[in-house]
């Protein structure tokens, strides 16, 4: 039995009815594409074209098109990989962990956040695959006997763990997202007027009718998937951090990496969700569903994870001094004062200082301020990965091999290109798929709406059947 305190802010404003939710969410799916959407898609497609050209150059002329050198063998590509994977953490966190914590505010943002996760992981996967140089050989990362003889992949390698972690994360997130989409596709199918739309959404809806038995199983599946996805989402960035932490490079070889990377991933993911949601709610007029309350809740997560990241930066520095290992100490002093000092201080400013502004309620509830700060966080988290990867590598144990890294235009092109790819996918999603989980929002409407939709309700609403009218329906495991 759920109890909603009267002092809680409503999650759905504007006195919506069930039908209003359907109308508001289906509107942009059914309407003709508007000008703003078309322009945004055109810009994204330009980015995608840049991506295609840069990938063509990389594949045709080889990895020499990139700015990597013998000393800095991982730089721009792995920075972007970790950045995208990190962004891809918010969706599953919102839908899985917040489901287990019974945070009802997740319902109107989980769909778009999960879509963002899937697209971000697609972008992330581009980098290690392209870095192979010969992506058509990518199947060799799977446990296949080498040249179909007897050598196997090396299960001791964190790079191989990554293969398993990222592919599991991608496929499980995709399935979790799709299961949630099925009832909403059914809603669109039953409203569709055109023959193509009706058939297309019928296929997408997997023949969903919304029977009580199906809903019962659907809820079970969602709960178990959330339970499975929660450790999964934490494992993915843990394993990404193992790529660094299991090596012996000063600046990488630290036990703090797994929790520090996971917190950073949630931090950057929430920032990206906010950046996108602030635009989406405006463009699609969804202000009644994605309210200031939602934005404030996400900003609170940003303060928490941003502070964890800040503490991690300081801890690393402290441990470098405390360990009395000369190389470790040099790696950190070099980060802050060496040739890449600007990257380090950009990271510190964007990630440690800016999110602290969210302690002020007025900033937390200001759309403009939130938008600007989330952009800062996105930039800061990119610099974090750049600092970790490049500054640790460019000056290693042997000063004669010290070098600097500078990206080529192709490096920049692939990075900008993945942003284009990401927005192309996101815009297509926003046009053809319901951006808000209608079924889940309808399910919380009675308890969390601003105005009662149909009939009498008490201030303290019981979600489900009020006890006085029906005694057999109390359910403790809601």
């Amino acid at each position, binding site marked *: 039995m759920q109890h909603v305190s009267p002092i809680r802010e409503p999650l759905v404003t504007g006195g919506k009815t069930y039908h209003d939710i*359907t109308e508001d969410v289906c509107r942009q799916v059914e309407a003709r594409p508007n000008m703003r959407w078309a322009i945004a898609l055109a810009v994204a497609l330009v980015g995608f074209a840049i991506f295609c050209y840069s990938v063509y150059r990389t594949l045709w002329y080889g990895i020499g098109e990139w700015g990597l050198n013998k000393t800095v063998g991982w730089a721009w590509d792995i920075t972007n990989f970790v950045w995208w994977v990190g962004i891809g953490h918010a969706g599953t966190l919102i839908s899985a962990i917040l489901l287990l914590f019974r945070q009802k505010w997740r319902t109107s943002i989980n769909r778009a956040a999960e879509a963002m996760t899937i697209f971000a992981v697609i972008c992330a996967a581009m980098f290690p695959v392209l870095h192979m140089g010969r992506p058509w050989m990518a199947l060799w990362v799977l446990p296949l006997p080498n040249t179909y003889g007897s050598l196997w992949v090396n299960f*001791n390698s964190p790079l191989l763990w990554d293969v398993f972690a990222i592919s599991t994360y991608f496929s499980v997130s995709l399935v979790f997202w799709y299961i949630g989409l099925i009832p909403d596709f059914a809603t669109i199918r039953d409203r569709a007027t055109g023959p193509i739309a009706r058939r297309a959404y019928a296929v997408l809806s*997997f023949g969903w009718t919304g029977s009580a038995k199906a809903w*019962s199983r659907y809820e079970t*599946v969602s709960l178990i998937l959330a339970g499975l996805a929660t450790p999964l989402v934490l*494992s993915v960035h843990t394993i990404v951090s193992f790529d660094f932490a299991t090596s012996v490079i000063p600046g990488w070889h630290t036990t703090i990496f797994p929790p520090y990377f996971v917190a950073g991933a949630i931090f950057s993911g929430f920032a990206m969700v906010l950046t996108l949601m602030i635009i989406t709610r405006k463009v699609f007029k969804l202000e009644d569903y994605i309210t200031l309350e939602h934005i404030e809740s996400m900003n609170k997560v940003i303060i928490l994870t941003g502070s964890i990241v800040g503490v991690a930066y300081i801890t690393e520095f402290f441990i470098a001094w405390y360990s009395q290992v000369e190389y470790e100490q040099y790696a950190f002093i070099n980060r802050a004062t060496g040739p890449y000092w600007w990257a380090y201080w950009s990271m510190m400013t964007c990630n440690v200082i800016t999110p602290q502004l969210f302690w002020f309620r007025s900033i937390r509830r200001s759309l403009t301020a939130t938008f600007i700060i989330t952009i800062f966080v996105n930039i800061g988290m990119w610099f974090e990965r750049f600092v970790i990867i490049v500054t640790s590598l460019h000056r290693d144990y042997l000063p004669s091999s010290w070098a600097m890294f500078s990206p080529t235009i192709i490096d920049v092109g692939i990075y900008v290109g993945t942003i284009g790819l990401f927005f192309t996918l996101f815009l297509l999603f926003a046009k053809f798929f319901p951006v808000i989980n209608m079924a889940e929002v309808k*399910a919380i409407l009675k308890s969390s709406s601003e105005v009662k939709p*149909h009939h009498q309700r008490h201030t303290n609403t019981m979600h489900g059947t009020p006890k006085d009218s029906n005694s*057999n*329906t109390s359910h403790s495991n809601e």
Partner: protein
Amino acid sequence: MNKKFVLGIYDDEDVLLTAIENVRAAGTKIYEVFSPYPVHGIDDVLGIKRSRLPIAAFFFGLFGTSFALWMQIWMLGFDWPMIIGGKPHIALPSFIPVTFELTVLCAAHGMVITFFIVTKLKPSTKVPVFDKRSTDDKFVMAIEVKDGVTDLAALNDLLRTNGAIEVNQKEVLK
């Protein structure tokens, strides 16, 4: 053979739950209830048993764990042993990440595929829906009509007195 149904249309989940109870108490068998979202408490009043999908998920996960361990131990320990980084051939701590990932992979996908099979969800271009509003804002209670047995007028009364806003008839071609 065509099947005939009487559809009681409701517009509130609490009214629906009470109606289901009263209709069942009156001895009428409910064929199915359709709703736009999962109504909490409907399992109890309809007598739907707890799904066994979590048990399926557990066994799929168990399969994933054992398969992953077997695969890694066999490949690196028996089929082609190699010394990597001075570690033993069967270096169990390094096998944990892949084992964990495959456990989750098998449990999640196995359960979802089972869900699709038992709920009979599959892509098709035509979906028979009793009342299209049931995926929008209405709750639909479907009761099968048996010719000569069901008293339609009494059923109509029963549904209406229990808060149905509409009572319709529907024939489904088989």
